């Protein structure tokens, strides 16, 4: 599946959240969306996920404007996940992950099929959350919750996953852990993967393409070794960076406070 975002602008009331954004997203690759708070990362992900419609421009999935797909088709193809789950009623982890199977279910069938349960069971084993399934959502830790969220995204059997800040609230081990899982499934299932991140170091380690947003516009787009090493990063975030060369032309980025740049 190929997703093309063509000159998309988005307005909330009269405030511009995205300004003339164009992108091409390919399967099997992790695209990271970076940018300071309020740069439009979440807006971009929500537009691609069809949760918000673009005010101008269009998004094409396999060459077809995504507004021409019906809601259920679209729901099966694209999975968008927020970094938290709203918990107003005491739902279990299994209840939550099973909601991802709803687009695949026929309205006349009251409960889920064995196939739905099998998909969830297999994913739970692979992501090592099988022991959490019977727990209430508010009794799992942040690290476990992110794996639950990844499982929810994958349980749809989607062709694109859009993850908003999957590494938020996690310690360094879980950050790597989550991104390893994302990378594994992106390659295994040939997914179009888009991840909004704050952590530049993590982005430099795992992303194939980086899109840098500032005030709703794309200010840089390209390989991590190009985008992250440029002065655009320093200008956009108002920080300093140090680049460490790793093997295979990979780079690791260490952000520094601006005052210590010299």
């Amino acid at each position: 599946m190929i997703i093309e975002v063509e000159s998309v602008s988005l307005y909330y009331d009269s405030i511009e959240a995205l300004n003339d954004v164009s992108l091409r997203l390919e399967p099997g690759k992790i695209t990271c969306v970076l940018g300071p708070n309020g740069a439009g990362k979440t807006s971009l992900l929500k537009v691609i996920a069809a949760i918000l419609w673009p005010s101008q421009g269009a998004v094409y999935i396999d060459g077809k404007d995504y507004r021409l797909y019906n809601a259920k088709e679209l729901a099966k193809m694209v999975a968008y996940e927020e970094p938290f789950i709203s918990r107003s009623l005491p739902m279990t982890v299994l209840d939550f992950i099973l909601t991802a199977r709803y687009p695949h279910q026929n309205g006349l069938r009251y409960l889920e099929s064995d196939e739905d349960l099998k998909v969830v069971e297999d994913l739970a084993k692979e992501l090592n959350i099988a022991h959490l399934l019977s727990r209430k959502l508010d009794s799992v830790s942040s690290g476990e919750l992110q794996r639950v969220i990844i499982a929810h995204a994958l349980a749809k059997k989607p062709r694109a996953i859009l993850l908003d800040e999957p590494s938020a609230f996690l310690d360094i081990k879980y950050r790597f852990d989550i991104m390893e899982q994302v990378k594994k499934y992106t390659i295994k299932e040939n997914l179009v993967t888009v991840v909004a991140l704050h952590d530049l170091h993590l982005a430099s380690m795992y992303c194939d393409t980086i899109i840098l947003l500032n005030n709703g516009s794309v200010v840089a787009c390209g390989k991590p070794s190009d985008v992250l090493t440029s002065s655009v990063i320093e200008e956009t975030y108002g920080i300093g960076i140090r680049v460490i060369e790793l093997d295979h032309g990979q780079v690791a980025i260490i952000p520094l406070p601006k005052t210590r740049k010299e």
Partner: protein
Amino acid sequence: MAMELRKAVIARATILVFSLTILLLILLVVSLSIGSSIISIKDVFSCVFLQECDRVTLNIVRYRIARSTTSFLVGALLALSGTFIQAVARNPLAEPYILGLSSTALSAIAITILVYPGVIVSRISLMIVSFCGAFAGYVLTTLLSTLAGGSSLSLILSGIAVTTMFSGISYMLLYVAQTKLAGLHFRPDLMLLGSTASAQIIDAQILFTILAIGIIVMYVYDLPRKLNAYVFGDSLAKQLGYNPRSLSTITALIVSILTGACVSVVGIVGFIGLVAPHIARLIAGTSDHRITVIISLLVGSILSAAADIAAKMMSIYMPYGEFPLGIVTSIIGAPFFSISDNKRW
């Protein structure tokens, strides 16, 4: 793991449906046997289930069946309303009574009776008026809550404000109506506290029809599944292909119809809509709406039937005349409300 867990939940729900239905039937027999004259439970049982009846028992059962079934149906409708509105409000403390739907419905009825007293004769017109009042109450409460910041606390506080105000208004209007309509058998005090004493068989039939339509609409519209998605937030509902705004509006309309129907027949019965979904989630061990709607419906009927039996007993053993059903549900429900406020089930 997932498979076993789910099978266990479904098995538990099946056993519950079975045992709750039996309990419901037992309560039906008990309810029919109690009244100004007590007939033996054995006689009622053989009358209802075995079709072997002496004339006296048959006549008494026929006379009492309207009140008994009405009390069951009111409980079922309120429990369904409560389950739906808790999901739509994303708040386990929401309830048609607490959110102001019941008292605005009663106010609408009171205004209509004052303006056009003839409406008392037509159950259907009363029901439509009541539904409009209930929906207006929902809109008013959500509007106030949004203005106050839209948190779950502001929703409950707005609901209590609306309930308090319109309870007062409806009592005032019904009091005026009472003096105006002195000739008719019209007891506004019973409407305000919810009583099945004046229920006729036509009421039970109307409530049953509305319950049946409500259940069919719920199934065809796939409401329980949609509510499961909805409680996790608008984004999640949208990315599963549902439209959260139309979902919440349609659900509020359904709740207003169910609640409005109850209010037009028995008046305000509070707390069943709150307590039944809580008990349902607790005993079913899940919050999956596909399961809790069924269990909650049964629990609501049982609670309402039991409360009505208690109200009847109080009327028999105390020389103060008719005790309204709503008094009993308030006495049981209000402490439950304060407990569930602290402890989330």
